[in-house]
């Protein structure tokens, strides 16, 4: 924090001075530690195959708008090839392989990701816009750990569900979003493989690169051909996967709107599904919370990954008696956040993932102002080219405002106040979503009363945005169903028998 002089105010809070002459020197991560191809084909049956569709699309760096790579676009015929490769691999190789050997492949993948961690982190930041500190310190290690954790389950499934044996489902079609590209690929592929299924996976069209680098890694790891297939493309490719008759299971992470489309599309088929969808998490600060830590937790909750997080703490409920102080602290804190080049290690908030997403966020900023909320943004400078949004706080927000009910998926916090416990419980649960929630209080008995009353699949008490491969993650209500992570994360990929 570049404050050289702190003015002591009459109370016991420090007033920070921001008008100092210290600034951060650039600390860029070097791009030379990473390499990727100018053009990528489809990864089917262990080989790079040209798309039968003959079509390609560009993936760009959202911080500079430069083209990074040309990516194959899989049509329905390409998806069919991939599914057939996955089915053959399932029938002839993967389901016959002893579980402990399966496990060793997955362990190998985990270790190799760790060997190349720096390269993956750089490419993740280039392709998606997230700060290098996050991809380096969170995305990539957590992805590697996810493979490592699930590798260990492969030969222990008989212990997982009392009185039941397990069977894999077959071929899983997996569609992942652009906010944590490599991590979402790990969350999908690791449990599917550990439980004996094979995979056809489609990364998001704005962030295909780390999934494709992962495909190169899978080749090096000697994973049997067809066990994992990566087909790149956009909505139409996803639809081809969802509608393919020889897929046994659909796993989707993305918007609630598309989740509902998928639910309707598979009705009448035998396909199983798990959906991990949107959220509008309530982060609740009580008057007896440790305020500085709570503010830090709220900041992390909404500005981590530019707010492109399904479980982002996008609604803050602060108890009236401490509202003024908390809002002042939030404003001070966002003033210190650096929006800039994702590859600069000083950067706190990177680029918005795409022009389309930036337009969505800006639409909500104007909706919020029209609805009568008061908007406050930091005054940090923004780079020239690229897609950027300053961290934003709305106060004077009403419970029924669209910015309090709809998912914005950007660095925008809606602040509401409350007086009593019953009031905040009702307001927090008053949402079609139910993915996550946060509770900040120092009173032990209140913590677990509140966490119990939150209708959400993940509740953070006196912390926020924590993840672990052993910790089940997923939503209530319209945030989806099924869990990823931990023992419960095995269930979506198994039939229980006997």
């Amino acid at each position, binding site marked *: 924090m570049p404050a050289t002089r702190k003015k002591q105010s009459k109370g016991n809070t420090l007033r920070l001075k921001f008008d100092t002459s210290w600034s951060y020197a650039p600390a860029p991560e070097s791009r030379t530690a990473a390499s990727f191809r100018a053009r990528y084909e489809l990864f089917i049956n262990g080989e790079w195959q040209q798309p039968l569709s003959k079509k390609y699309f560009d993936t760009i760096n959202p911080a500079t708008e430069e083209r990074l790579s040309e990516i194959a676009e899989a049509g329905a015929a390409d998806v069919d090839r991939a599914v057939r490769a996955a089915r053959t691999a399932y029938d002839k190789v993967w389901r016959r392989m002893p579980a402990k050997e399966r496990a060793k492949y997955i362990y190998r993948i985990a270790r190799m990701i760790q060997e190349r961690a720096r390269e993956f982190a750089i490419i993740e930041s280039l392709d998606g816009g997230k700060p290098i500190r996050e991809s380096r310190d969170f995305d990539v290690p957590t992805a590697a*750990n996810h493979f490592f954790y699930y590798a260990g389950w492969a030969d222990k499934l008989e212990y997982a569900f009392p009185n039941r044996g397990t069977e894999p489902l077959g071929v899983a079609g997996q569609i992942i979003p652009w906010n944590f590209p490599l991590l979402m690929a790990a969350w999908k592929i690791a449990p599917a493989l550990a439980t004996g299924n094979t995979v056809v996976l489609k990364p998001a069209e704005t962030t295909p690169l780390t999934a494709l680098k992962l495909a190169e890694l899978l080749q090096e790891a000697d994973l049997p051909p067809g066990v994992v297939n990566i087909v790149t493309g956009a909505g139409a490719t996803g639809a081809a996967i969802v509608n393919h008759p020889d897929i046994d299971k659909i796993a989707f992470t993305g918007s609630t709107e598309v989740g509902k489309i998928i639910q309707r599309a598979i009705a*009448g088929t035998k396909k199983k599904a798990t*959906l991990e969808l949107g959220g509008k998490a309530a982060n609740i600060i009580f008057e007896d919370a440790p305020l500085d830590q709570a503010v830090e937790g709220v900041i992390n909750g909404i500005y981590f990954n530019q707010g492109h997080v399904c479980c982002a703490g996008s609604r803050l409920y602060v108890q009236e008696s401490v509202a003024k102080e908390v809002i002042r602290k939030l404003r001070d804190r966002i003033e210190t956040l650096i929006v800039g080049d994702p590859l600069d290690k000083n950067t706190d908030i990177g680029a918005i993932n795409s022009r389309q997403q930036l337009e969505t966020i800006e639409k909500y900023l104007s909706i919020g102002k029209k609805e009568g909320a008061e908007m406050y943004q930091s005054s940090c400078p923004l780079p020239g080219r690229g897609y950027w949004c300053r961290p934003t706080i709305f106060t004077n927000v009403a419970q029924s405002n669209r910015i309090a009910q709809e998912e914005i998926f950007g660095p925008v916090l809606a602040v509401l106040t409350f007086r009593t416990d019953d009031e905040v419980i009702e307001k927090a649960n008053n949402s079609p979503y139910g993915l996550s929630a946060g509770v900040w209080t120092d009173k032990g008995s209140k913590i677990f009363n509140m966490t119990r009353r939150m209708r959400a*699949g993940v*509740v953070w*008490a006196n912390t926020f945005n924590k993840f672990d491969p052993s910790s089940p993650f*997923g939503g209530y209500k*319209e945030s989806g169903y099924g869990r990823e992570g931990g*023992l419960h994360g095995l269930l979506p990929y198994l039939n229980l028998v006997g």
Partner: protein
Amino acid sequence: MEKTEIKKSALRIGEDGLEKKSASRRLEVLKTYKIFIGGQFPRTESGRYYVPVNNRGKKLANVCLSSRKDFRDAVAAARAAFPGWSGRAAFNRGQILYRMAEMLEGRKAQFIEELMQQDASRKKAEREVNLSVDRLIYYAGWCDKYQQLFSAVNPVASSHFNFSVPEPTGVVSIIAPQQDSLLGLVSVIAAAITGGNTCVVLASETKPLCSITFAEVLGTSDLPAGVVNMLTGKLTELSPWFVDHMDVNATVFCEADPETQQRMRERSALNLKRICFYDRIDWYSNAGQSPYFIMDLQEIKTTWHPIEEIAGSGSGY
């Protein structure tokens, strides 16, 4: 209404399902089969009725033909009852389910008669009632145990206490197995409420009598009002509302009807309610009861809390 034509034997039923005419000429008092909402027995707000008939052509009763509004009222009652029921101690729920078994056992004769009116042989009726009682006792025992089997303390790599527990999904709309009058109905209700859910149940359309008599059992079992709500009526009329309602968290459907199943999956996308199809379950076997029926209607919640790293403590719990 042709009340005088519907004869119900209060005394004896023969092996052929027909009542034996009693020697005395005392007039029976016939039961009005009303529906069960919010712990009370209202008539259907639509005022309509239908007359199910057994295989020998005997009219069984004037049974309420429930309406969409009855269903909506029942969902409101179930939603109101949910915080209280899910907030009860698990042990207390077990006590209440056990009392349901006691009450059902005490009324075995009545249920056997009703089943025999609805085409069961005496032997089959006895078996069905016995299994229903035993099933309630089975689930009573699970109330405070399934959590231990399906929860986890997760060994996260950071300094946090982290645990995952099942929680009831909320209000469940249940279309009970249509071929049974009692056992299938008891099985699906027990699994749902053992897990802390509340429910609205549509009984068998052709064999509805035991559902309402079972509601009387519920009414005397200390089960809070609104935890189970029982409707009788036409499946094709009501099933769309069962799966459409935005304040229902899950729907259970037990018929092997692919068209209805498809429509239900499509309509469930409205609010992403969970759908369970129990169309191949033999309720008369051990496959008809398991903690996995409970878990089908549970959500998993994961809670995190930091552990300060003081006095040399490491991470994890």
